[in-house]
């Protein structure tokens, strides 16, 4: 931001914007709004095609909810680490800031590792993007999410590099804040994807039956 503002301000200090939000942060918000529609369209596609596969493997045959719950937890914790990294950067606690910054990237990589293992397992179980609608929609939706995580990891490693070089300080912490907005967004999107694919993803109304059984169990 500082640099853009300088370009418009002869005295070299940060010029105020009309909204009070810096150009770069506003750019990130607009991008995230746009990205909502991107993921929204893929998620809508997944929902439209839920239970529409004509051949297996079906979701309940391959999805491993406990394992993916762990990777989901890892990704959620990376958001916590992100908050701490920003907090310590703003308070000029360089050591802790760097530790948490690298932690975010590391947790992101762990999440990606889980995804690689999951994808390989599924392919071994004969689920590919060609195989059926579930394979097509599952791999492309989670794949694009994984791509977002991967780009986020690259960005955070760049941030960490800048921190070690002394270019990321409390004065320029907004750079990190913007990366944080992106990271939290990607995290939130995963919560939706996890819910849609893993938690309500079981075929043929099995979920509803379970609810029915539970209700009759309580009633009886």
């Amino acid at each position, binding site marked *: 931001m500082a640099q853009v503002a300088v370009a418009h301000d002869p005295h070299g200090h940060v010029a105020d914007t009309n909204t009070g939000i810096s150009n770069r942060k*506003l750019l990130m918000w607009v991008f995230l709004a746009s990205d909502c529609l991107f993921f929204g369209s893929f998620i809508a596609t997944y929902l439209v095609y839920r239970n529409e596969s004509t051949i297996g493997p079906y979701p309940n045959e391959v999805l491993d909810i406990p394992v993916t719950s762990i990777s989901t937890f890892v990704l959620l914790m990376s958001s916590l680490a992100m908050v701490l990294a920003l907090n310590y950067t703003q308070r000029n606690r360089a050591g802790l800031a760097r530790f948490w910054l690298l932690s975010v990237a590391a947790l992101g990589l762990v999440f990606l590792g889980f995804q690689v293992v999951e994808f390989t397992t599924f392919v071994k179980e004969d689920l590919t993007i060609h195989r059926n609608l579930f394979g097509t929609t599952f791999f492309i939706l989670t794949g694009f999410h994984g791509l977002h995580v991967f780009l986020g990891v690259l960005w955070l490693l760049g941030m960490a590099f800048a921190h070690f070089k002394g270019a990321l300080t409390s004065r320029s912490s907004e750079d990190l804040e913007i990366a944080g907005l992106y990271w939290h967004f990607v995290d939130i999107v995963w919560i939706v994807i996890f819910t849609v694919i893993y938690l309500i993803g079981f075929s043929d109304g099995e979920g509803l039956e379970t609810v029915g059984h539970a209700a009759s169990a309580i009633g009886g």
Partner: protein
Amino acid sequence: MTTIAFPTLISRPTSYTGLWSWIGTVDHKRIGTLYGVTAFLYFLVGGIEALIIRGQLAQADNDLVSPEVFNQLFTMHGTTMVFLVVMPMSAAFFNWMVPLMIGARDVAFPRLNAFSYWSFLFGSIFLNLSFFLGGAPDAGWFGYANLTGSTYSPGDGVTFWALGLSILGVASLAASFNFVVTILNMRAPGMSLMKMPVFIWMALVTSVLMALAMPVIAVALVQLALDRVWDTNFFNPLAGGDPVLWQHLFWLFGHPEVYILILPAMGIVSEVLPVYSRKPLFGYPAVVFAGAVIGFMGWFVWSHHMFTVGLGPAANSAFAISTMLIAVPTGVKIFNWVGTIYGGKLRLDTSMLFSLGFIAMFIIGGLSGVTHASPPTDAQQQDTYYIVAHFHYVLFGGAILGLFAGGYYWWPKMTGKRLGETLGKWHFWVMLIGFNITFGPMHWLGLNGMPRRIATYAEDLGWETSNAIASAGAMLIAIGVLIFIINVIRTIRSTQEAEDDPWDGRTLEWSIPSPPPVYNFAVVPQVKSLDDFWYQKHPELLHDERGEHADSTEHAAEEAHTGGSIHLPGMSYYPFIVALGMTLGVAGFMEVYVEIPGTGGQFPWLSAIGIVIGMFGIMGWTFEPVSEEGGH
């Protein structure tokens, strides 16, 4: 701020003239010119495609082109006119005028702006390369599944289409982000949202629509490209895929897209009419509100493109009602424009003529549009020439005439010379008459049952006269465009110099020299009211027209920033490089592989090259300071 010492990969351009200065430019005015020139060239390409189509249909049982070529022509005509003409021409005006009208020295992200243009250029070239590499896309501009599947479109054309439009989508997204931020954040002091010119409002609404609609088409195009290249099942009915999903995704983008095409022209007309009527825009808040409502409601009407798909009476009724409702804010705008002209001291210059032509033609197109808001009526009109007539009345009679109005209006500001008025009026009348002769008879043809997209028709159907008239009209439009080109050439060759404010304008761009200096405003303006520049020139009108009292304090900027030179963002080659890398990377999906010796594996070499170039560009972009220290 400490900057990281990083080796300069490519030194930035230094000269302000020559080819390299254009490739490295980040100046919004130069980028606007690039957009405008490119879009006009594509207007000629799309126009030639249209002329061949009309030549083929001029008489029954004609064989000027084969049905295969005909399919490519109408597909590329539609795709070109929508994505390579109207959108980038609007972008040209946004680029030129948004910073000038809000009193800014550039857009918020100059390098991102350059990136938008270069991705647009490379994407459009990639799309048109299909003509020479095995045939252009031929499945219609809205590419319905599963006609676009490998079974029915075995060539590479549709893949070119899906990938090319994806690149153009990235360009549009980058541009829309840039303009939302620029308009929200970089207005001159005092210019609150309701003191912005209507054109800026429409640019804002359009940019928001683009930011939200382009991802939807991007997803649909990615799905289509994956179906074709990687054999996924998104639109494969054999695997349970549903071709109607494509229609939903396409039109969920497609209807906001219609407003993306028309709102900039509406903004231009809203600027031109008050100036040539010497009256403030009638009901400014209503015009702004109507534009915003159109932008919002545009999201709830998409299925009126799908009335004959069989979505059921509930869905059809809901979309019929929302479609009829969206005519209301459009009508509000038309009444406001008429109210603006009413009682004004009209000056019928070319720009005004085009604006009046816009209103008249848009009313016709709007009314025929309302007729197919009704599902039973639409069932008769679906896929006939009636639809072709309708959308040409709104997109040509609306958007194109509106853009020409903007061209004549802002030409002196952009180039320092006025376009010739005599030739301009010839241009207007020839084009308007030619337009009506071409597209008027198509209403009759459509109601007589002539389907669109047929390469030829039999003799005894009663369609010959109307088709012959339409084809003659198309020639007249072509002559109109020729007159415009002659006018432009003569204007460029002339030695005249336009005044800074030739039309007695109302908005800030007229307060600076023509053409504007690189930095636009030597002193950042202080805005007190809507149409601030007008009331600086005519303070006595402030009370009558706006009910405000002239401020006794001096209107000009209180503190002239004389403390230092104006810093401008430095030129950069990296946007060009990143756009090139992205295009090559995407182009690599066209199954451009080499066999890896001895393994039988394949290596996507073009994508790999693209990714390397793109990464190199992003690295350079990231570490390049926005402007050099201590100068520009």
